[in-house]
């Protein structure tokens, strides 16, 4: 095995070492002090929270009345509503403070799916599952926000 090893020049090695050290430092600093805003080096916060055995599990999604009179649950992927479920939840506080933001979802749906019935009313629904000794012990479902589409 007489494979030739191509070496790096001193500058080539220098900037490689520097950028590697820099990225590792950013990753560590972001994990210690940062949050999701620091993407792509931000902390890996997926499932990084503790749910107590007597806690509750919340999930949110969007529902809509359509112009044909149907009531539908919107897809959890971005293609249905323009926002994924996790994104709806990420902006929940804003929807509660300013329901008119939901108008944008209705507008996007019209542009994305011109062939489908348009939305006449949008609902943000929240389901709360109560836990008892770590096991689900009953759900409540409520409407958090409604918006009459213009």
């Amino acid at each position, binding site marked *: 095995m007489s494979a030739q090893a191509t*070496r790096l020049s001193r500058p080539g*090695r220098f900037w490689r070492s520097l950028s590697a050290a820099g990225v590792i430092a950013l990753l560590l600093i972001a*994990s210690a002090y940062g949050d999701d805003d*620091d993407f792509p080096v931000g*902390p890996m916060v997926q499932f990084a929270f*503790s*749910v107590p055995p007597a806690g509750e599990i919340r999930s949110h999604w969007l529902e809509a009345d359509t112009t044909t009179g149907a009531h539908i649950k919107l897809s959890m992927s971005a293609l249905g509503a323009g926002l994924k479920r996790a994104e709806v939840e990420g902006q929940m506080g804003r929807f509660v403070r300013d329901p008119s*933001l939901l108008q944008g979802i209705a507008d996007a749906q019209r542009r994305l799916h011109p062939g489908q019935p348009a939305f006449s009313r949008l609902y943000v629904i929240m389901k709360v599952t109560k*836990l008892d000794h770590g*096991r689900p012990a009953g759900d409540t479902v409520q409407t958090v926000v409604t918006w009459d589409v213009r």
Partner: protein
Amino acid sequence: MSETAGTAATPWGRWWYAPVPTARIAAIRALVYLFVPIDVLFLTDSAVVHAYLPADLYQPVLLARLLHIPAPVPWAMETLRVVLIVGSLIAATGRLPRLAGGVVAVGYLPWVLISMSYGKVDHDHLALVVALVVLPTAGRARFRDADRSEAAGWTIQFIRIAVVSAYFLSAWAKMRWGGWGWANGETLEWALVRRGTPIGRAIADQRWLLHASQWVTLVAEFASPLLLFTRGRLQLAGIAFFLGFHVTTYVLMSIHFMPQVICLVAVFTPWERLIEAARSRTVSPEPVTPVPSSDSAT
């Protein structure tokens, strides 16, 4: 120049710059760059869908604000997607590694930043972002190369660090926000109630199993840096564990972590040996001619 002359005197230098066969870079490029079209068409396609939303739903992350990336518009995102697909298909062949690879790296950054700027950041893209940035620096690489290079070594170690960071830092985050009680909490129950598959919901009642899984996850994530310092069967066992982990989370709650899985497989597989094995099988068909036995002749 002898091969030992290529290794630096310090442990840092030896670890980062040990020469690696450039054929491995060719294989990693093929895998990672062929994955990019899949990613922009099916996984981060929300970047295009988002462009149809009004700008007030755009909540740019820090880097997007620093780069002054505006709220996306459909034609721009569709164009960027075409550029990314064409660029990555060229880069996957090993042609124009710096130009095509550079275009993909520069184009993918705003793409993925926009995809993550609508209220949710996904944590499976760190290694892919790092891979796209560093792969062009390894220069030319072909499947038939017999050469080794320090640049290839550095490139692969950097992506390996990103892959391992995604595991290790998620254990760190669990301690930072969940505390030591995380493993005995109901986080997995939370995930199964919210997005469990039928199989996932079927085991949601087995509280001891969920707690045990949380302990295994936490220990494995904290131990993940061992992947960087082990080799052979031990390392293989580690890789197999994490692949199994991803299969399990997919089966139980359809969380796939594909970009992370692709990078994991790409940088921990000794591709040059597989290429060598495949070639010796196809190149030398002659030794398989059967020898006629003497007693059955005539």
